[in-house]
């Protein structure tokens, strides 16, 4: 029902999505609007539900690996990593050094390409007709080309294995990757100059969708969205998984917690990722890429449960696995960062204009493949 307020004006219930240009997939928001102002917002998801978690219980442990690519399809390799890490924790598998370095290299490259695409997407949400998006995608394509050279697939990489990675770096790949990463900062500087120098962009982002550190922690947010609110929490530092403790990098955090901080955090994180990559390129040792003790067929981890998590580009990506000692997981659950980050969407959006809702949603950076699983 439409409700009348004191002045006799009626509110309008509009459904934004599932078939909407800027909901980043098949996401839906039921918005109640008073004029242009949002008074109520209800996120509705599940349109892309594929029953991934239940299906995994019917597959072998390794059989789920290609399906994790489809969770957050913008950055499949970190999904692989999260799953592999959880299983390794469950079965107590050691990973060879070279494999850990390869994981860091591809993982940080995934972070760079995800954040690059984000810069384009949020400009699209602001109505910039894809100008920034096309340049962002040009750079992202180059990283995807490198992924293709390494894994054979641009997006659906299926690259990690329990105890290592699927294949070693091809000859010359490292040089190509290093050469490309060297050119990247120039692009980022240019992008940052154009974007943060734009008055309309600043006025659209600053002061919009402010989230306090306390609410962000209580809401369970993670990743750049959490750090934009000023919370110093990066699982690469907290857990120190992989070889991250050996690499020097800084964790940026914002002070205001609005859309602009979330936007800037991505740029700052890309810069840190480049630092990590340069160190990893220099330090990567020779050696095996896969723990020979791990069986590919008939892999059976011992009875038990484990929660493995990584700092994905979008936040804390966790896999909770329970094993009954069989060839298939007994229980398989994912903590997708996009879904948890969405929980505070209404809080950020109420009271803003309808145009801000799109920007706030864009600044959270969700992928529906991961939200709905």
């Amino acid at each position, binding site marked *: 029902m439409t409700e009348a307020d004191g002045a006799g004006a009626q509110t*309008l*219930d*509009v459904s934004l999505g599932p078939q*909407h*240009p*800027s909901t980043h997939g098949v996401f839906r928001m039921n918005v109640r*609007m008073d*004029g*242009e102002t949002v008074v109520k917002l209800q996120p509705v998801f599940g349109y892309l539900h594929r029953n991934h978690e239940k299906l995994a219980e019917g597959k072998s442990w390794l059989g789920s690996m290609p399906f994790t690519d489809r969770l957050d399809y913008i950055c499949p390799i970190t999904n692989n990593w999260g799953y592999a890490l959880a299983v390794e924790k469950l079965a107590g598998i050691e990973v060879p050094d070279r494999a850990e370095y390869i994981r860091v290299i591809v993982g940080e490259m995934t972070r760079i390409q995800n954040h690059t695409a984000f810069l384009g997407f949020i*400009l*699209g*949400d*602001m*109505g*910039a*007709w*894809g*100008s920034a*998006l*096309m*340049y962002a995608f*040009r750079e992202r394509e180059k990283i995807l080309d490198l992924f293709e050279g390494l894994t054979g697939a641009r997006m659906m990489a299926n690259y990690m294995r329990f105890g290592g990675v699927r294949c070693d770096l091809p000859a010359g790949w490292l040089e190509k990757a290093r050469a490309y990463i060297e050119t990247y900062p120039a692009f980022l500087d240019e992008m940052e100059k154009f974007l*943060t*120098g*734009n*008055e*309309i*962009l*600043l*006025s*659209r982002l*600053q*002061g919009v969708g402010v989230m306090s550190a306390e609410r962000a922690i209580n809401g369970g947010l993670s990743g750049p969205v959490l750090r934009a609110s*000023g919370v*110093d929490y990066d699982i690469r*530092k907290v857990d120190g998984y992989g070889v991250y403790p050996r690499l*020097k990098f*800084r*964790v*940026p*955090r*914002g*002070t*205001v917690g609005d859309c*602009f*901080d979330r936007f*800037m*955090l991505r740029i*700052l994180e890309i810069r840190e990722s480049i630092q990590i990559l340069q160190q990893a390129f220099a330090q990567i040792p020779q050696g095996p890429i896969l723990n020979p003790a791990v069986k590919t067929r008939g892999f059976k981890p011992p009875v038990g449960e484990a929660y493995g998590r990584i700092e994905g580009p979008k936040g804390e990506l966790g896999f909770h696995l329970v094993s009954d000692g069989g060839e298939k997981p007994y229980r398989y659950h994912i903590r997708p960062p996009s879904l948890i980050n969405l929980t505070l969407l209404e809080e950020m959006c109420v009271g803003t*204009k*309808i*145009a*801000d*809702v*799109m920007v706030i949603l864009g600044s959270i950076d969700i992928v529906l493949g991961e939200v709905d699983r």
Partner: protein
Amino acid sequence: MNFIDLLKRIPEICKTPETLPLEGKKLILDFVTWLGSLVGIAVPPWVLTLVNILVVIVAIIAVFLIMFALMSVWERKILARAQNRYGPNRVGPWGLFQPVADGIKMLTKEDIVPRNADKVVHFIAPIVMLVPALILPVLLPYGRGMVAIDLSVGILFFFAVGAGSEVAIFLAGWSSRNKYSILGAMRAIAQMISYELPLVMSAVIVALVAGTLSPTGIVEAQGGYQFGFFPNWFVFTPWGFVACVLFYFSALAESNRSPFDLPEGESELVAGHLTEYSGFKYALFFMAEYVGMFAINGLLVTLFLGGYQAPLPFLTFIPSWCWFFIKLAFLAFSLVWVRATMPRFRIDQMMQFAWKFMLPMSFAALFSAAAWHYAGRGLLGWGISAVLVAIPYFALGYFCFTRHHSADNRRYLFSE
């Protein structure tokens, strides 16, 4: 008079490109007279008047439709280049026949009208949108002596007719009975009435200085050169520059171009008031938008950029009507450029910009123009007038827009 004489006149006409359109029109009239003599009757003067009128109308519609067609492909080309793409390049050389393909597609597309829509109003809206847009160009002076009708109230008539498009957008939005359409229509009305004021005000300033409301008179007032080389265009005076910029922004907003494309706001409102339109009705909206855009920028050229006047004295060998279209093409390019560069405003920012910046600045420009005139229209006037627009500009900037947006006032902490 015989047909051969008429044919012989064609190369003669072509020798003087300055008067080519006018002589061409005379030739057509003479051709009608010759046709009359062929069947042995003297063509009555009212027929000649009628033919004259029809020639003018057909010429204007044809020119603007060709410009619309070219613009629709050029815009996509320029936008594509700005976005690191190729743009249309499949249909004909450089994709030049793309508009033809688009037209055929629009004609053959099924026209879907929603069951809940108010069908009559839904049908009328695109026509109401197109009619004023088509009439507007009739008032513009395209070259020396080349104006279809030299109305003494030209400017007033222009704005009076131009306001019709607001009604049409609201009709479209309201009759669709679609939530996005209605929000888009509401936005369109709010936006267009807000930007109507600076638009009219800046035109009024020019009229006050030129002492006439006739577009031709305004262009003539900008003729001649200061110091023998510097054009007397109004855009080169401080008040004229401010008014020109205000007019340009308002023209952007009135024709719903990015960054003022809130009524269509693709990322928020799907397609705004156009959501429920398909087939040729959609094409009519599109056409009206572009023709209206050309008309309002043609008015900008007339008011501030010296209309058909050449920018430098030695460039007068290029015919005056060419200058008009060169300037118009330049403005059209700048519109696409802006569209490729800018994100969209939010509605409250847009309204604030209109009422708290554009409107006060248009008053300031008016006072400044008065000062310029009474100080003798010379360098002294130039200086006083510059001060008079600079003060409100900086005052508004510093005291009223207190929320300074800047990337520098942010602090980011790093933890090792």
